[in-house]
Every structure is written in C-alpha cells, then in structure tokens.
C-alpha cells in the first residue's frame, strides 16, 4: 500500500497512468456526491410534503 501521495503518483505514472486521469476521476466523484445529496434532500422534502398532507387530510 502506498500512503504517500508522491510515491503513489510515481507508481501511477510508472503504470502508464497520469495525473490527468486521476484528476478526471475527481470530477465524476464530486458530481456523484452532489447528485446523491440532491436526491436525498429532495426525497426528504417530498416525504415531509406527504406527512403534512396526511395531517391536513386527517383534520378534515
């Protein structure tokens, strides 16, 4: 295992991979995290709407 960044990057470069590829991976990771956060907050928002609707309809 290579915990040192420089060592790891040297390994990656030696393996024929470059930093650009690693950097290119960072963006989809960030995007996925953002999408999941968005999905979670929208799901929570919708659940809250359903709960409010349940209370409102029961009060009729």
């Amino acid at each position, binding site marked *: *295992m*290579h*915990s*040192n*960044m420089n060592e*790891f990057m040297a*390994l*990656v470069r*030696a*393996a*024929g*991979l470059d930093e650009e*590829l*690693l*950097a*290119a*991976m*960072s*963006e*989809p*990771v*960030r*995007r*996925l995290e953002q*999408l*999941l956060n*968005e*999905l*979670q907050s*929208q*799901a*929570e*928002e*919708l*659940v809250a*709407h*359903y*709960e409010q*609707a*349940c209370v*409102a*309809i*029961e009060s*009729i």
Partner: protein
Amino acid sequence: MRQINDITMLERLHDQVRQVPILVQRYLAAVAIAEERFRLVESRVLQDIDTTYTEHVRSVAHLTMCECRSACDCRERYTTVVQEAQHERYTRQSQVAMIQQRLAQARSAVALESLQRQCHQNAEQLERGLDRLLRAVRSYQDS
C-alpha cells in the same frame, strides 16, 4: 477538487460507488412509504366523508319522518337536510382535492426520477473508470 491520494482510497471509493444503487433505493423507498401512507389515509378520509353523509341523511330523515306531522313538512325538511349534507360533503371533498393538488405540485417540483437516472449513469461511469484504474495499478504492482 478532492484528490485521490492512495490505492486504499481508490478501493474505498470503488466500494462506495457500488453502494450507490442501494443508497438510491433507500431514498426512493422512504418516498414510497410516505406515498403509501398518504393513499391509506386519503382513502379512509374519503370513505369517512361518504359514510358520514349517508348516515347523516339516513338518521335525520328517520327523525324527520317520526317528528313531522304532514307529508309536506316531512318532504321539505328531508330535502333541506339532504341539501345540507350534500353541501357538507362537497366542502370536505373540495378540501381533499385541494390537498391532493398541493401534493401533486410538490411531487412535480422534485425531480427524483431524473436524479435517480443521473446517479445511476454517473455511478456506472465512475465504476468503469475506477475498475480500469485499479486493474492498471494492481497489474503494475504484480509485475
């Protein structure tokens, strides 16, 4: 921008990406449970409105029949009661419709389906990339 700083992190990331469909299913399951709960409550409330209406008309009509002396009075009172009950039922049904409409607006305001699709596409793309990256690094280590 976050940096991927070692192979352990790559492996961890790989595992996390594999968990994405489960995470997405969990969020959607919470929404499905809320939807189901609302449908049950809604159906019970609608049934209550109809039952109350029918019982109200029936009981007042019975009282009216017993109390009224003339058939004319009886018919008049019965008609009034039915009209009042109909109005009451209409009001309650309008309230239900308003809540249903508000909920439909909330449902269309969120884009769960589109987000879900994007998450899956992104996770698949990422998993392919991470697979390639891990294979390359491992094969270099083995050589």
